């Protein structure tokens, strides 16, 4: 197969002589080589990041510094951050946008202040185009299906297998009006998912039999966004409201499995900015209300938790040909309630950065941010430089020291220490006090960029990170022998301890952009631990050591586009689930002949291919997209408790008027 792909690649290269030399320039940290359909496709397309899922719908992300159990990357829509992380569980399906509406995706893997917010674990910066003048409407529907339904073999007791339902549907719509100086727009999204694979259906479904009724085993995520913008002269104003209500199964790591919950999110944002010559000034108010409420389940589990944050931020910037300055401050006031807990927090953050082009070929940059809470302060600083050594070779180096407040880790242990006793409700014990230390780390990154030909670039990057303190939540769950309950895990002593160690990451990236019609790239990531405590080593075994991704996008004609991505991921080991190794799980009662599977702590390495085709109609008003995922139908599994994601196909139709 690899040989065939290589031959095809050569063939395609040989068939594009008419556009050779029209190399496009694109920001290094934006994505362009895939047709993205679902929000989670964004995560898979970022080479440095890795993701894991227990249901195939919501993914935990490791963006480089904190692993799957650390804070998740901050997500921005048009410069305004949205905060739908619940105890570090973040569901990107809560985005009220379609991927069609996102024109540029910027990302960064390191902690930094970005658009008036401290992005603790990097960020995803999603930018949409401003509405056209007059009315415009967008609407899309996406449906998907995973293969391996029983079909007519359901009549044969020796061949019958569980029903694997369709994925989705997802509905997205937008209505907008653009005037000469103002615009207004509204977005609605509804995404649904049926976790029907045997490996998670038996576990999640076990909650659903309540008062003699089987409730649907289904996740439903609904969102709405309304925004108004106005600009006059040098001033611009924006205000945004966002509302989200979701029936979910939140994977609560200290518990070792999912808990049914209704998560809610409301946001009000007001922003004003002014640009005068080289100066810019911006002020913003954000109110975020997050909640986790009761969703019907036969155990009576209830997070009963909510928090409201008020964030006031002020920033200023100066930019000329040689110098760029940015500084700002954020004041955050937070009120949280959970079971019997009542808690209030106030934090202040000051940040600043300077970037200077000292010489045509040499630039320097430095950044500092200080996060001040009631009893502790976290300081982060970075310094870096870039040097154009030859016409075709540039080198950049960055050294950073980063501290993160315990509060910023978004761990449930933070709230437990303030009286949120969810652990008692769930039967989670712990023998040692939870760590209250700050996370701290030092990172050195060296990047070489080579231009091999006008349209070909090569990146070699090495990163060394020393975690002086890394708070790791850890729950080695016990196996429950009573299979009929569909539970399989019992929480045991939970630990949240400060660990230390160091890691390397090496990256090789190769990109060729040949005009608008042909782009392809290859990225290889290798990670390994240098030293550290025993738990530090166990924790990072969840992250695959090697990742390889080859992506190609071909647009042979203006109304047709193809993309393909080949992805390799090495094995990972979920040591927290070692007690499940080799144990069986089975389908739920009441059902046809019982189906059995086996838990494995080690998720296998896999190589898979996704292909996507998009055809536009009616002067690009109507787009249809057809995608095949896991074309080779290999075992794609990200977590011991996660499903084996067999081949899937996805169809999307979107209309823009």
């Amino acid at each position, binding site marked *: 197969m690899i040989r065939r792909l290589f031959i*095809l690649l050569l063939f395609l290269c040989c068939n594009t002589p008419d556009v050779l030399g029209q190399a496009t320039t694109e920001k290094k940290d934006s994505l362009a080589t895939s047709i993205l359909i679902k929000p989670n496709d964004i995560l898979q397309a970022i080479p440095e990041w890795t993701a894991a899922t227990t249901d195939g719908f919501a993914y935990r992300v490791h963006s480089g510094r904190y692993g799957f159990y650390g804070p998740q990357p901050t997500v921005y829509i048009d410069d305004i951050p949205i905060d739908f992380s619940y105890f570090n569980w973040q569901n990107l399906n809560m985005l009220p946008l379609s991927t069609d509406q996102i024109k540029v995706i910027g990302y960064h893997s390191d902690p930094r202040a970005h658009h008036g917010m401290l992005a603790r674990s990097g960020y995803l910066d999603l930018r949409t185009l401003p509405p056209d003048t007059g009315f415009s409407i967008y609407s899309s529907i996406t449906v998907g299906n995973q293969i391996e*339904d029983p079909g007519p073999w359901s009549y*044969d007791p020796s061949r019958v297998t569980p029903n694997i339902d369709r994925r989705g549907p997802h509905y997205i719509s937008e209505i907008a009006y653009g005037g000469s100086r103002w615009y207004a727009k509204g977005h609605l999204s509804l995404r649904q998912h049926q976790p029907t694979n045997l490996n998670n259906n038996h576990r999640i479904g076990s909650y659903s039999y309540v008062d003699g009724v089987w409730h649907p085993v289904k996740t439903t995520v609904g969102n709405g966004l309304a925004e108004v913008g106005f600009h006059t002269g040098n001033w611009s104003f924006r205000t945004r409201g966002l509302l989200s209500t979701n029936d979910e199964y939140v994977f609560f790591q200290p518990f070792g499995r999912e808990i049914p919950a209704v998560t809610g999110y409301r946001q009000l944002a007001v922003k004003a900015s002014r640009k005068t010559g080289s100066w810019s000034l911006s002020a913003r108010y954000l109110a975020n209300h997050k909640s986790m409420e009761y969703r019907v389940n036969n155990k009576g589990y209830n997070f009963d938790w909510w928090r409201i944050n008020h964030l006031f931020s002020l920033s200023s910037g100066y930019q000329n040909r040689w110098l760029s300055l940015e500084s700002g401050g954020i004041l955050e006031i937070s009120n949280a309630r959970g079971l019997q807990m009542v808690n209030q927090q106030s934090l202040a953050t000051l940040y600043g950065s300077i970037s200077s082009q000292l010489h045509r070929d040499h630039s320097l940059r430095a950044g500092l941010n200080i996060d001040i809470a009631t009893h502790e302060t976290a300081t982060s600083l970075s310094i870096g430089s870039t040097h154009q050594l030859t016409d075709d070779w540039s080198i950049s180096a960055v050294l950073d020291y980063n501290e993160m407040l315990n509060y910023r880790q978004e761990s449930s242990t933070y709230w437990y220490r303030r009286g949120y006793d969810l652990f008692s409700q769930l039967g989670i014990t712990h023998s040692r006090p939870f760590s209250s230390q700050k996370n701290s780390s030092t990172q050195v990154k060296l990047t070489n960029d080579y231009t091999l030909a006008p349209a070909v670039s090569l990146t070699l990057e090495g990163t060394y990170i020393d975690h002086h303190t890394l708070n790791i939540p850890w729950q080695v769950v016990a196996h429950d022998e009573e299979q009929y309950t569909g539970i399989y895990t019992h929480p045991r002593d939970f630990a949240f301890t400060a660990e230390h160690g160091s890691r390397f990451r090496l990256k090789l990236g190769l990109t060729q952009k040949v005009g608008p019609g042909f782009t392809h790239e290859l990225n290889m990531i290798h990670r390994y631990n240098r030293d550290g405590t025993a738990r530090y080593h166990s924790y990072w075994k969840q992250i695959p050591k090697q990742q390889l991704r080859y992506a190609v996008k*071909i647009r042979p004609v203006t109304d047709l586009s193809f993309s393909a991505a080949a992805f390799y991921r090495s094995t990972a080991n979920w040591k927290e689930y070692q007690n499940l190794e080799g144990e069986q799980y089975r389908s739920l009662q009441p059902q046809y002949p019982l189906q059995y599977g086996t838990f494995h702590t080690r998720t296998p390495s896999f190589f898979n291919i996704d292909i996507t085709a998009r055809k536009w109609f009616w002067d690009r008003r109507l787009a249809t997209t057809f995608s095949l995922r896991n074309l080779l139908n290999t075992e794609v599994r990200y977590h011991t408790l996660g499903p084996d994601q067999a081949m899937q196909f996805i169809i999307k139709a979107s209309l823009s008027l």
Partner: protein
Amino acid sequence: MLRKATAFFLFLLSMAAAGRAQQSSYEQIRLDASGALSLLDNSFSRHWESSPGFHIGTRINYHAGNLEAGVRYSNYSARDPAYDEASFSAYFIYIGWEYPFRLARQLTFAPGLRFGNTFLAFRNPATYPAAGVWAEYVFDSHESEFAYELFGRLEYKLGNSPWHLHSSFSYNRTLTYHPLPVGLLSLGISRSLSTPSWLKNFLQ
């Protein structure tokens, strides 16, 4: 088989890229109707008896080759007595692409590939344990599954008329857990016509 299909599909993509300036698109549309008989002998055909299928579709020239879409209906009844009175209808709804080669002045051969969904409608859905028992589990009466099809079509143009005769062999595979492979021999007629301007505008 799936790997071969992948390689074939990628080959077809490359053909599309290579021949993009071959001809102007959307000039001609063709309407097809045909009947199909199942040929292959395999586990599926030994357990299920297929009635002749009926197919309608449409094709339109698009850069290199033709884009196509259509639906084929088949009915199946159980050969295996253990399945009782089981029967179901299958609708294969697809989009596809073919690349025609001219063999003679009025004869063309077109290999192609179709992707789509097979929708299954069961008249008496399977029930476990036996019907009427406590906690019985009844399967859905409707199901759908991804399917792909490789085909080769011979087409003969009838004089100067817009009518054509065609015959094709197709291999269809619906990817249920235990797949449903079907080989079909079909015979049918086609009529070609100039694409109406409103349709051409829509397709562009």
